[in-house]
């Protein structure tokens, strides 16, 4: 009986290819849309997470001023000293690495190309804390730091704008009023939700202080970069740092902090949940498209119900039982839904693969969403294909035959 029903169902599908095509199309588009959106959304989430972890997941940055916004103006607030960084490193065991940083914004020139760049003066530890690796040439060393030599490493954005396709390593660029040799090109990091990380020039702190800005006081450090030991509770670490810094900056107990601590882990969590929210939003949009596809199927099924009710009447009249007719309709609906679902999965795979290259997110095949979308489409198809038939098969044959 089941093979008979199969034969009849397949024959019936091949007999009305337009109806079959429209049914399949509805499911096909819905499934492809939901899989593509969720897969790409998750790819984007992964990309953001990867970039955040390239920042250094246990990275804390100490800056003068009370924080962001109007209250956080650093005007009149003293900078840090190199000693501050040294003391923090000695006194807090949870700190894995610490380095003072001085940034300055200066014009940079190579031949006829000029741009304004942010110059970071620091120690070689900085590369380790911020997970910078070299793509070409070399990083500067403690020897460079001690001698204050005129060397720098540049990020990829700076290379593109100043050198174009030329090899920057070994070339001399003009930074402010001094000339400086490019000894290395940093490996690309990309955008990380907080600006272009590759737009950077890094040089020894001593070189920056002496050659570019002229050190005027001990308080010349405007940033301290800290990486915490693995597994450190960042709130405890922040409170330790705060305590020591308040003493070193002679703050009375009734005074607010005149420095702030920026914790990348918190940023990572915020960004992570934001992209997750976006993925859910995309999934919701895709879910609506699947629903619209389902309504399309329902439409086709309801439009064809007159013709199909007569067909059911004919089948009943020549001796089919209601069960046999229903089995046929069930098989038809399942077959069409499955074809639509499988085609949707194939299209989604192709779309995800292609779009992932275009919008530069990793393509990460998610079996779960494929299964969910497929199951949903099958349910929708079967429901709307089967339910009208169920009603018709319950009629007396003569009523089904006379159905207008």
């Amino acid at each position, binding site marked *: 009986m089941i093979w008979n029903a199969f034969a009849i169902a397949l024959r019936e599908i091949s*007999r*009305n290819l337009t109806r079959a095509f429209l049914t399949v199309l509805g499911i096909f588009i819905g499934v492809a849309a939901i899989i593509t959106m969720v897969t790409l959304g998750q790819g984007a989430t992964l990309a953001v997470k990867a970039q955040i972890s390239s920042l250094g997941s246990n990275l804390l940055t100490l800056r003068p001023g009370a924080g962001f916004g109007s209250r956080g103006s650093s005007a009149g607030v003293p900078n840090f000293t190199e000693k501050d960084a040294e003391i923090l490193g000695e006194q807090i065991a949870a700190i894995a690495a610490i380095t003072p940083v001085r940034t300055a914004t200066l014009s940079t020139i190579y031949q006829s190309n000029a741009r304004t760049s942010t110059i970071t003066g620091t120690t070689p530890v900085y590369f380790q804390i911020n997970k910078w690796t070299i793509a070409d040439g070399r990083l500067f060393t403690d020897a460079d730091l001690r001698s204050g030599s005129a060397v720098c490493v540049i990020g990829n954005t700076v290379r593109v704008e100043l050198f174009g396709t030329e090899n920057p390593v070994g070339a001399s660029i003009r930074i402010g009023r001094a000339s400086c040799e490019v000894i290395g090109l940093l490996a690309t990091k990309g955008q990380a939700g907080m600006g272009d990380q590759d737009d950077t020039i890094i040089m020894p702190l001593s070189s920056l202080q002496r050659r570019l800005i002229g050190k005027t006081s001990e308080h010349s450090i405007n940033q301290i970069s800290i990486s915490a030991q693995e597994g450190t509770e960042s709130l405890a670490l922040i409170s330790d740092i705060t305590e020591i810094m308040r003493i070193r900056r002679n703050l009375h107990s009734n005074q607010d902090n005149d420095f702030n601590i920026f914790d990348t882990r918190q940023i990572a969590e915020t960004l992570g949940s934001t992209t997750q929210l976006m993925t859910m939003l995309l999934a919701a949009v895709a879910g609506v498209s699947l629903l619209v596809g389902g309504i399309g199927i329902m439409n086709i099924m309801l439009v064809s119900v007159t013709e199909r009710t*007569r067909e059911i009447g*004919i*089948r*009943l009249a020549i*001796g089919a039982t209601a069960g046999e007719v229903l089995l046929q309709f069930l098989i038809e609906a399942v077959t069409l839904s499955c074809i639509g679902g499988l085609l949707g999965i194939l299209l989604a795979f192709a779309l995800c693969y292609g779009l992932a290259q275009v919008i530069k997110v990793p393509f990460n095949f998610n079996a779960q969403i494929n299964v969910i979308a497929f199951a949903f489409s099958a349910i929708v198809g079967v429901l709307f294909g089967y339910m009208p038939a169920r009603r018709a098969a319950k009629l007396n044959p003569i*009523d089904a035959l006379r159905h207008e």
Partner: protein
Amino acid sequence: MSTAPLIELRGLTKTYGKGDAAFQALKGIDLTIHKGEFVAIMGPSGSGKSTLMNVLGCLDTLTTGSYKYEGIAVENLATDQRSLLRRYALGFIFQGFNLLARTSSLENVELPLLYRGMSRKDRHEKAVAALNSVGLTTKLNRTPGELSGGQQQRVAIARAIVTEPSTLFADEPTGNLDSVTTGDIMELLKRLNEDRGITVLMVTHDDHVATVAKRRVVIKDGLVESDITAPP
């Protein structure tokens, strides 16, 4: 008539609707039909003749009374059992042909055999033979849309007789056809009745068509008005 009756009706009624809107189409039909008869059921529009035909053909259910088909009490059968009775014993021809659209003559005729679980080869042979017997040897692969009304009705007849039913129910089989084609179809039904011994019950309002039948049952207002068998 010495044989047991094929069809035996006692006090058959059929009511549509309920309460005030109820309409009694059949008001108590007593009728006995024997194997091998060719019966024309006649009567004016709305007399209940089609309703009677549908109840007899198990396409519709009766309201009260008894209906025995070869001794089986049809009123006690479940829906699926009525389906099986149609499958194995009854054949239908409708005024509107009721062929499956976009389906070849051959497949239309094979369909009842498919529900009987017959093998592909047997189905094909029997369907071709049935179509041959109605004179459609050259139209096996035509769909209903490519056939004339008379040809469509021949396909419908082939579909009805391919299962070798004991009774053939024809509801206004020539109602949509011209007079020449009508003659052909009636000749075909007559031959099936005489050569194969198939009992034929035919609803018609056309006196000329009814002359083929040996027995005429006239229904009026849901009751049998007259029942005349022509002398042999």
